[in-house]
């Protein structure tokens, strides 16, 4: 992949605009940044690896609970929390991947749902650890890099989230731009061809899944640290499904699309929910329906017709 500086600058520009001119939206922007990391991690396995999963929140939630538990019982160092969350996500991905990656298509999809639901039910059962329906709370997040703690307006949280987003974006772009990334894309497009080149497919997919779990776990840890509470919904099917929709809205396969899709979906959800909690479903539903029915070429015509 070519080095593209423009997207980083764009994110920086948008971030700066929000920071200086729309400070009331900082919490929303932090949420978008956190979710964007999660959706990018989904892009690795869906957009690059070609494996549609509806159980990705299991990795996100695991990271969230890990970071929360670490802060509660041991250390509130945020960077340590991120690393712990990432490691937890990668570990769960490795263990479940050994099982689910042997399958493809609908079977794989259903198994990822099953794993996700099993983990969510486990978290609910062991409420002594996780707080169950009430959620895990009572922990605080320490100073970021020893410099600043979260302020009430959410400025520090926003800078923290955006910083982590940019670093994760860079790392993921590098990973997918390597020969490993190329092989994964090849596996996505034609497994038979890759086998004929001598590629060991299962180990590559497992590695990709673990990397995806690593970043999903970091996203979860970030959300735990910023919100200072972790609920069972971080492990839920709804989150997995919404993440897939966000990815598809923005376009899978480039990582930038994941960020755009997350921003679009979350903003619509936020704006529409203020009117009625169900209205965002109209907008997103219509977008999905029209997006599929109207082929790409006609979008271009429509855009030009408006101009």
């Amino acid at each position, binding site marked *: 992949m070519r080095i593209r500086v423009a997207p980083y600058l764009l994110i920086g520009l948008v971030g700066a605009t929000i920071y200086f001119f729309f400070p009331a939206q900082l919490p929303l922007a932090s949420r978008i940044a956190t979710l964007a990391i999660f959706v990018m991690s989904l892009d690795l396995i869906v957009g690059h690896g070609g494996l549609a999963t509806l159980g990705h929140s299991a990795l996100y939630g695991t990271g969230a609970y890990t970071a929360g538990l670490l802060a509660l019982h041991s250390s509130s160092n945020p960077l340590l929390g991120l690393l712990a969350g990432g490691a937890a996500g990668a570990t769960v991905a490795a263990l479940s991947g050994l099982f689910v990656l042997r399958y493809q298509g609908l*079977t794989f999809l259903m198994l990822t749902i*099953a794993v996700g639901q099993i983990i969510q039910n486990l978290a609910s059962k062991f409420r002594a650890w996780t707080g169950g329906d009430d959620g895990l709370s009572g922990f605080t997040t320490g100073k970021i890099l020893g410099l600043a703690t979260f302020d009430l307006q959410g400025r520090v949280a926003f800078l923290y989230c955006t910083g982590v987003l940019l670093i994760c974006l860079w790392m993921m772009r590098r990973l997918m731009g390597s020969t490993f990334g190329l092989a994964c894309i090849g596996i996505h497009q034609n497994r038979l061809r890759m086998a004929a080149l001598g590629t060991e497919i299962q180990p590559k997919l497992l590695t990709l899944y673990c990397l995806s779990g690593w970043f999903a776990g970091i996203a979860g840890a970030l959300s735990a640290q910023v919100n200072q509470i972790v609920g069972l919904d971080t492990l839920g099917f709804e989150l997995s499904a919404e993440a897939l929709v966000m990815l*598809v809205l923005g376009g899978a396969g480039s990582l930038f699309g994941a960020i755009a899709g997350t921003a679009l979906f979350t903003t619509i959800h936020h704006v529409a929910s203020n009117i009625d909690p*169900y209205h965002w479903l109209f907008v997103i539903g219509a977008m*999905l329906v029209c997006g599929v029915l109207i082929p790409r070429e006609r979008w271009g015509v429509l855009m030009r017709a408006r101009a």
Partner: protein
Amino acid sequence: MTLLANILIDGIAYGMVLFIISVGLSVTLGLMRFVNLAHGAFAMTGGYLASWFIRAQDWPFAFGAVGAVVLTGLLGMAIEALVLRRLYRMPELQQVLFTIGLSFLFVASANLLAGPEVQLIPLPPWLKDPIDLGIRTLPAQRLLVVLTGLLVMMISVLIMKYSRFGIWLRATVDNTQAASALGIPVEWVYALTFGAGAALAGLGGILGAELLPLEPYYPIKYLVLVLVVVAVGGMGSVAGSMLAALVLGTIDTASKYLASDWGSLFYFLVMALLLAWRPQGLLSPGRT
């Protein structure tokens, strides 16, 4: 002993409801190869319509139920003919996305038209009374559900195997162009099959209203349950859906009775093991 009997009865009833709702999806997914994640929306539609007919319009239960089922079937046919037809050739992901969007629209519409509250379907006295079977008494509603499930399965299998429509359906699915060249009205076959699946889903929604409450998020909330039955049973296999629905329904009910703080963990654990053992489904009909 009574506990076991209760688990079995409730489990089988629950399984039957799942079967009736899911059989349409199994057929469209397995035979028509169309991924319709909005299937639950038809179950919701059937339930909502029945609730409106019976409660707001004061129709007798049987009329309301039948009317709702027929209307849902017609709605399914209309959607298939007007919209879904264009999606058959598209890649699976597109079908998934479209039908997710469609179910979002259903959810939002349900809220717009009827509000966020649960829609209740009042049972008539003849369904509320217990029926004495000799060995024990059963609520009539449970008996109705089980009988309906068995009837649906018998009729589906009979139609698919022995009727002309069944032959048309299999021919159309195997090779649409050839079937059309032979004079089979393929468009009608698709529309009727889809409509029948939608109608059955609606029936399941009505019968299962107690177990699966009718509220706007219904299509999304119960999507997973339906997909599980279809995947484990084998896409396209009516008998497979029945088997999967009964097994999984009983396990879920048992775990609710016996180990409720584990939630639906055992349901998904069994499901994962069954799928891992038979990735094509328990009774897949032998197609690739």
